[in-house]
């Protein structure tokens, strides 16, 4: 199975004119791949991931999953949002259950309950299942949101800056959990994640798609990350290949005016 984007264009009304946010994007994500989209604010990475989720229609071009055109949300694609987006009046377990029941109506109540238990347990939240979102920390909310996404058993996981709002320690733990869930707990085949973090992108991805701001091309470069899995966040920093990818990303995101935008932001992202 593969996720194929061909000639994707999307414009938004912007200060009286229109701004082409996606400018002929071509992308092919293979089964078993983890792909990160990185770039400055306004480069269209969130737009692309929302289009993959079927939340946003393209102006031109196509998105195909296994040859089938994607035009609306479907149970084969689940999404994790930056701001957790749990439903505030439902407990953590009910959030997961409601999503499974809706996305997989054929499953039935019992199976939805089992899926909720399995994935909440996998992210260490089964004990806290009856808490409401506001009663737990941001990290726990995002873990519940990750569990919710995996519980619908999607083939594609889409994530829009899933760890952007978390502190560094919580983020590190969630990164590991995401990879564990993806590789050993689920049948989810591929992941497309939007990120601002260079190190996060290298740690998690098989390929990193660097996106640029208008008026340049949407995709500036695609960098393969050939580090063996499982990756250890401490030791891979010393790997020469890690260095190489990091330098290449830094150069792309800081040194190319007009293509990658504001250098200050990328320095922050690298820090």
């Amino acid at each position, binding site marked *: 199975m593969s996720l194929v984007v061909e000639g994707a264009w999307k414009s938004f009304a912007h200060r009286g004119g229109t701004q082409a946010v996606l400018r002929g994007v071509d992308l092919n994500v293979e089964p078993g791949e983890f792909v990160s989209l990185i770039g400055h604010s306004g480069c269209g990475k969130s737009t692309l991931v929302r289009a993959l989720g079927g*939340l946003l229609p393209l102006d031109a071009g196509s998105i195909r999953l296994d040859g089938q055109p994607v035009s609306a*949300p479907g149970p084969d694609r689940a999404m994790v949002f930056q701001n957790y987006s*749990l*439903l*505030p009046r439902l407990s953590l377990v009910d959030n997961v259950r409601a999503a499974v029941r809706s*996305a997989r109506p054929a499953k039935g109540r019992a199976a939805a309950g089992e899926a909720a238990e399995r994935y909440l347990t*996998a992210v260490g939240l089964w004990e*806290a299942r009856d*808490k409401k979102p506001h009663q737990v920390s941001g990290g726990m909310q995002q873990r519940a949101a990750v569990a919710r996404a995996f519980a619908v058993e999607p083939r594609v996981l889409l994530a829009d800056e899933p760890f952007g709002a978390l502190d560094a320690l919580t983020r590190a733990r969630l990164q590991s959990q995401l990879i564990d869930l993806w590789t050993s707990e689920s049948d989810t085949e591929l992941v497309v994640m939007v990120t601002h973090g260079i190190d996060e992108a290298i740690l998690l991805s098989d390929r990193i798609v660097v996106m640029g701001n208008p008026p340049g091309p949407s995709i500036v470069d695609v960098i393969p990350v050939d580090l063996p899995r499982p990756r250890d966040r401490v030791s891979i920093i010393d790997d020469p290949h890690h260095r190489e990818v990091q330098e290449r990303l830094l150069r792309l995101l800081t040194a190319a005016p007009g293509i990658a935008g504001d250098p200050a932001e990328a320095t922050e992202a690298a820090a």
Partner: protein
Amino acid sequence: MTLTQPLPVEEVVDERRGTLDVVPGPDGPDAPGPTTTTPVPPGTSRLRRAGAAIGWALVGVAGFVALWWLAAGRNDKLPAPGDTFTVLREMLADPFYDNGPDDKGVGVLVWLTLQRVFKGWALATLAGVPLGLLVGSSRRAWQAVNPIVQVLRPVSPLAWFPILAFALADTEAAGVWTVFVIALWPTVLNTAAGAATVPADQRDVARVFRFGRLAYLRHVLVPHVLPSTVTGLRLSMGMGMGWIVIVAIEMLGGSSGIGRQIWTWYNALNLDKVAAGIVIIGAVGLVLDLALMRLARAVALDEGVRS
């Protein structure tokens, strides 16, 4: 499964809430939080604060009664506080007697009036909540309904009564439907305002996980709208509209109820009873509002601190 590390159950956030003993009202500015820098034992400050609140309330009531007493002393047509409270005590001593249509206890009268206002209010809620959800969720519905609401809303409630009384040929039903018309606007407008502000991320969640119409209503729309709807219910009932209006309607053309009775007492120039009736109406209104405020607090969405 191969998790890299055991996951401790995390802390429950915001212990601070435990010390926040003043719950901000839904419509007021945030109550001043506990900004004391010197540590105070939690129970003590709460007691002291409640004591102060009651004390100052008594001061206010005493001041009001004193002014009333002075005014009654200068104009002997005004009922004096002493006489009023004597009458009030007599009324409350036996509130539920019923000696036929012209002689009932105040409890019975209030109950008759309450039944009317509740009927109108319930009808308004049944119609207003779905209409509000529709109007708040659809721009077209909003554009269709908003002009009508804006024109009809400022019309005095009592202006509806003659038309309805004539059309229905039944003052009893006309009273109920007048309350309905009055209670409808706040319910519709507040529900619509809530429905129009469902956060984009919750709508995204509903789309990504393919919530059906029913699941969307149940898990997203209604839970989000509930606090605004209750505000609307409170505006249409407790804060005034319904309760204020029904008393006036009974004076205009009712056959029974506390409002009608006040009009009868006035015609008999029994002003002590009129004043006592006013006190009772005020107290019932206060109880209604407190009950709805409690409901508002119960359904308030505690967003908490998002860390």
